């Protein structure tokens, strides 16, 4: 995709048709960025201009990004990092062996396993929320970071298995066999030959899982009961009071929680569709 996009740049002139397309596309692109621009503008609005009826305040004030750290925001940011980081590590730990083995070996139950993964990919925790809640209640794991890590890992593993399976399957098996002949074990060949070659798939799975767990809302809302264990998606709601909303801190927090994730996502943009549609689109 990148090759297609960058090749015509060297062309000197563009036909009129392309320029019209470009104009419309830039307008569309702006529309899709507007809420996040408004988020940033609202975060740097001075407190006394928060409720003004204008597009831009008379000056910008970044204080909200400084004093937000005294509202407990840092702790919730740490929880979000723990949940997203923990889920990502767990997903990679269980999905890499599964993806590798299903790509390399035909074994009994393989088809059933892949079907189960495909079905899991379609499921969302929302549909079985009551069951998840009661299960973790019986485990005594309500209000713990580990429960959020487990659920996020479980529901995002399917994407990781599918995309890494596709990458491993595309690596010629002869490369591993050559390593076997040189006296390498299967694990040795996996770590020294296969995984480095499948790195783009692993990175895609890693970033995708991290973002999905970072953005997850309904499970965190259900399984956490104290503000000390809430990740950002839930914690930011505490700036919305019954009668007053602390918009400045709400948007400063939103910017910190959102902008890095959008940039991360841009890195894997071209590879995500293939993983989400589980090989059904060529």
């Amino acid at each position, binding site marked *: *995709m990148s090759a297609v*996009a960058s090749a*015509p740049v060297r062309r000197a002139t*563009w036909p009129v048709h*392309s*320029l019209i397309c*470009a104009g419309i*596309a*830039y307008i*569309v*692109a*702006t529309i*899709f*960025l507007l*809420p996040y621009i*408004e988020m940033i503008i609202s975060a740097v609005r001075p407190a006394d201009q928060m409720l003004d009826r204008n597009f831009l305040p008379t000056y910008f004030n970044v204080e909200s990004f400084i004093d937000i750290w005294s509202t407990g925001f840092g702790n919730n940011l740490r929880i979000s990092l723990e949940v997203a980081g923990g889920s990502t590590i767990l997903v990679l*730990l*269980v999905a890499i*062996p*599964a993806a590798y*083995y299903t790509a390399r*070996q035909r074994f009994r*139950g*393989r088809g059933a*396993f892949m079907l*189960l993964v495909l079905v899991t990919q*379609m*499921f969302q925790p*929302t*549909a*079985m*929320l*009551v*069951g*998840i809640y*009661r*299960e973790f209640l019986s485990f005594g794991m309500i209000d713990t970071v580990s429960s959020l890590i*487990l659920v996020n890992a*479980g*529901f995002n*593993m399917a994407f990781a298995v599918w995309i890494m399976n596709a990458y491993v399957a595309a690596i010629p098996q002869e490369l591993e066999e050559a390593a076997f002949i040189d006296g390498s074990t299967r694990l040795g060949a996996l770590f020294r030959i296969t995984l480095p070659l499948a790195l783009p798939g692993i990175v895609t799975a890693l970033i995708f899982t991290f973002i999905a767990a970072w953005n997850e*809302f309904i499970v965190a809302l259900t399984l956490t009961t104290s503000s000390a264990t809430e990740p950002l*998606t839930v914690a*930011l*709601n505490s700036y*919305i009071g019954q009668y007053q909303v602390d918009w400045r801190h709400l948007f400063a927090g*939103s910017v910190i929680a*959102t902008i890095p994730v*959008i940039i*991360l*996502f*841009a890195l894997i*943009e071209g590879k*995500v*569709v293939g993983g*989400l*549609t589980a*090989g059904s*689109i*060529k």
Partner: protein
Amino acid sequence: MSISAARDEPVVARTRRPPLKLAARLAPLVWVGPAMALIVVVVLWPVVIMIETAFQHISPDGFILGWAGWRNFVYLWEEPDLPGILIRTGIWVGTVVVGTMLISLALAQLFNQKFPGRRFARWALIAPWAASVVMTAIVFRWALDANNGIINVVLYDLGLLHRFNTDAADWLGTPGSAFAWMIVVAIYVSVPFSTYALLAGLQGIPSDVYEAARVDGAGAWRTYFKITLPLLRPAFIVALLINVMNVFNSFPIIWEMTRGGPGHQTSTTTTFMYQLKESYIGESAAMSVVNFGLVVVIVAIYLRATVWNREPV
């Protein structure tokens, strides 16, 4: 490795054979087992507990008081707000998915053209997809504020809104306009993925097909409806079904913008299930079982639709 074992002396091989066979049988479990275990514990077992809960009598503070038979389903059926919620869920899924797919078809066509800066325009498109839906919904709630929301400021400047802080400016205060705006937000966050999925489909159509159409003298519209759309069908169906699933399960937009209120007048079955959970967990589980039944139907359609155009895994 297994080859060298088989070449061993026959006698040795015979004595070693049973443990080897066992090891060979257990090998898949070692590699695939952890993933299986995670799916069972986090995805499958909650379904069992959810169905069990739907038939239990549980007090609001969480004590199991025994079996309830079908009573939870009867209570759910007798909820006065249920008919409205069911109709609204249908409208929600229908309008959001149709709106998303139509807009995505147009945008995929646009972003499939060659033009300067296409890469950057495509990057901008992913923002609502990458960002947390919670945050996006909060920004829209802020932009729709009756006093100073940016959307009202624009409407005021255009002369479409005459006074702030009126009922006309309070979009989220009345169920009809609140629900309409939530549909807009849901389409907005669904379009990026759908556009990308359709773009992938468009790029999979071989260019010689278009060459042939041009040689035959087919016009642009004719080419689109006779060639592009039929060839785009697999990608379209997959994107459509994934959208149906996402929109049906969508929670943060409604939750952040109206909490399903006033009353339950902007609730869907998903947000209603969540609200029931607070005090009537058995009835909430009954609602979940109904929702889950629909989810299973969508998954079944998805499998039927996708297996035929995928090479056997």
